[in-house]
């Protein structure tokens, strides 16, 4: 068991190393002169030289990479050129919006998808199953930012129940902050809930067809108890995998939804940084997003290797 965790940890470290190298190559080496990108073509030579010095571009690339990674390990993400402040402060501030937003969305998505998917599978081809299939087909097709727009149109502009966007900050109290995040997180959750519902449904159907379920029914366990004790726990394994993989869709979606609702989150920061050509910020955010996705999927992987003894021998 310990050996398994150690070997997985090693592969996690290698993966993270490659991701950071790829990001560094794309954003710092391929552009040739990042300073020229950041300042544009009209920049004067002496301002360019100053920025190059500030970014440490006179150093060799390998040294700059090690410097970047070493800094991150110490919690130092460098200095934003446009905001004139440490990226770590900036990220921490924005994270306090994006993290609760994504978690709330994942919570809503799971709370919708699990019961719907299981109910649909329990009575295959019944009316519930058909309704759930229609919901999941529709849900996958509707863009999250459009749902957000319609929410603003209906709940904010028409009914005035919710703010049309913006974030009061956690200092304004729990309720106003939650209120500002509710519509965006539902908009973010719905399309992913549709995907997860389909996955839950087909995973449940798969387990229902398994021999041990037939045995349980044959020895007289009633349908509900079979579902609860034997089917659902087993169906949750593939569902958890997909939920882990969906994380990158939640982050990608957050970039859009934060822009729709004007939320000062990490996704919006990435988008603003692109418009301001702040490569330092973009580099850090891309690494944080992809790093989080990789680490969470690693944890999911390890998690059910511990929970499910059958997966242990398969290493």
């Amino acid at each position, binding site marked *: 068991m310990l050996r398994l965790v150690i070997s997985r940890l090693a592969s996690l470290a290698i993966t993270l190393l490659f991701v950071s190298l790829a990001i560094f190559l794309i954003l710092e080496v391929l552009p040739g002169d990042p300073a020229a990108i950041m300042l544009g073509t009209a920049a004067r030579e002496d301002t360019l030289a100053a920025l190059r010095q500030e970014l440490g571009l006179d150093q060799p690339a390998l040294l700059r990479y090690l410097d970047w990674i070493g800094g991150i390990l110490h919690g130092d993400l460098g200095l934003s050129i446009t905001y004139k402040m440490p990226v770590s402060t900036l990220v921490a501030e924005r994270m306090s919006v994006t993290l609760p937003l994504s978690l709330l969305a994942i919570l809503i998505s799971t709370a919708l998808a699990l019961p719907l998917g299981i109910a649909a599978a329990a009575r295959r081809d019944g009316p519930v199953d058909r309704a759930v299939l229609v919901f999941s087909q529709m849900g996958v097709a509707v*863009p999250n930012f*459009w749902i957000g727009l*319609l929410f*603003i149109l209906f709940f904010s502009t028409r009914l005035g129940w919710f703010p049309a966007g913006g974030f009061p900050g956690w200092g304004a109290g729990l309720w106003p902050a939650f209120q500002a995040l509710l519509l965006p997180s539902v908009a973010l959750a719905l399309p992913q809930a549709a995907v997860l519902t389909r996955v839950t449904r087909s995973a449940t159907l798969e387990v229902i067809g398994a021999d041990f379920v037939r045995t349980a029914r044959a020895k007289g366990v009633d349908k509900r108890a079979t579902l609860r004790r034997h089917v659902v726990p087993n169906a949750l394994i593939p569902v958890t995998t997909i939920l882990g*993989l969906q994380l990158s869709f939640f982050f990608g979606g957050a970039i859009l939804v934060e822009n*729709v609702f004007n939320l000062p989150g990490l996704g919006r920061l990435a988008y603003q*940084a*692109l418009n301001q050509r702040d490569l330092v910020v973009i580099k850090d955010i891309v690494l944080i997003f992809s790093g989080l996705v990789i680490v969470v*999927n690693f944890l999911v992987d390890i998690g059910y290797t511990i929970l499910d003894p059958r997966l242990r021998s398969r290493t």
Partner: protein
Amino acid sequence: MTKRSSIRLNAALVIGGILTALLIATALLSLVWTPEVPTRVRVAMRLKAPLEAGLLGTDHFGRDVLSLLMVGAWNSLAIAWPAVLLGAAIGTAIGTAAAAWKGIADEIAMRVSDVVFAFPAVLSAIMIGALVGSGPFSAILAIAVFNVPVFARVTRGVALQIWTLDYIAAARAIGKHPLRITWEDVLPNIAGALIVQVTIQLALAILTEAGLSYLGLGVRPPNPSWGRMLSDAQTYLSQAPHLAIAPGIAIALSVLGLNLLGDGLRDALDPTLKGRGASA
């Protein structure tokens, strides 16, 4: 007795086929005809409601919404289609090669796939946009990058199964080169799975393109796109709410059509998979 056709028709296939045909027909029609010139600015006709001016009203420049939508269909496909084809070509090459050589090459290919898959397409677009500037080219590239690991995994999975078949083992035994086996035996056998995946990925690509152009990272104005129409609509939400409806419906119907078509094709091509439609 009636003769059975080789492809079994099902509801998803028919509805998906019709919606997709409509999308393509609209896109093609926009090349030769639209009710109004989509880029013509008419200040006197600003923000007119549907039927007041044109079938779907006008936007903040007085442009005809229906005409913009039609050209938007073309622009959406013009990004989604090359992006998916590029991703499919590279992904299939990687997937089939990984299945043919297995071992360490396979291991590396799949690890890299996992890593690329960790990047949401919008994030790739931001990164590529920072590198070469944002625009249609960056959008195509970002969506293609996202598609590479998807196709690598799908084709590897199917190809691995085919490599275990007896006649492939026989071909190997008489010394047929793995490349030729891949080209002559494996590829024709995974064509069905590929077509299904291309259809489903096209749906996702249209969705992504809409998101990118909403952020201004796709087609450049004044060239119309569905995503940009929605971002413009947000500015005039209280004055002209109708602007926020039509482009969203256009996106949703296109995506729905392609998804249904993909599911329908899968069921028609391989009845054993029926009801397992889990395309995350």
